[in-house]
């Protein structure tokens, strides 16, 4: 393996890891936001039903 290949591997590993982590964070955030929305809607309809 040439020195250039090691350099390429190191920089690729860094950006691949950061990108994968970012994608995972984005997916998790979307799932949690959807869960918050559904719980807030349910809480809102309970309050309307209780009136």
């Amino acid at each position, binding site marked *: 393996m040439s020195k250039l290949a090691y350099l390429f591997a*190191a*920089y690729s*590993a860094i950006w691949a890891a950061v990108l994968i982590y970012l994608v995972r964070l984005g997916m998790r955030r979307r799932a949690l936001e959807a869960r918050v929305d559904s719980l807030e809607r349910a809480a809102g309809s309970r309050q309307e039903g209780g009136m």
Partner: protein
Amino acid sequence: MGIAMKKTLDIFFPAAALAAVISALAAVFLYAPVERTMGLVQKIFYFHLGSAAAAFLAFTVVLVSSVFYLVSRSPRWDTVALAAAETGVLFCTLVLITGPLWARPVWGKWWVWDPRLTTTLILWFLYVGYMVIREALPGPRGALAAGVFGILAYVDVPIVYFSIRWWRGIHPVVIRGGNVGLDAGMIPPLIISLAAFVLLLAALTRERYNIGNLELRIQQLEVSSKEDTP
């Protein structure tokens, strides 16, 4: 903090990190001189050191937030500590990946049990352990245990930093006695790389903190939903 300020920071950190990372790549590949002995592979050093600085900073945030959590018992501090621990583990992983990729062509070996390498590996295991505690013990018990562990684990950070001074090893010493052992042309790319990784850490930790806040909101809504159910 107001909603407008939060939204501004949500945009500022990723934008600043992206701009800094592009600048760092340009500085490393277009400005920094090629080292005479190691050649191109020496350029791994800029982002290897950047990752190490980001990991150290993240673990310092874990320490400070753990202390604040244990004093105040505010879940917000626990959320900050967890976010910083997760991003710290990410950057420490990058240190452990890029180090061997530099070592193989320079030392002829992927790994040696040098004090700096060994203590860094221990650091990684300690904070992975922190994450395991959080997974195994949800709720305030886990937050308390992680808070104590987050303080104790930090003992290894100064050990990693001073290991190259305390023990004989083969890991290069870049900063010794306030002097930077680098060619003058390598210093600006190093400073830009360090700034880029600190901004990247800030952006990722903030995003992870926002996720932690969403998890707290869900817990609150689930508790109030159970209380409302007759």
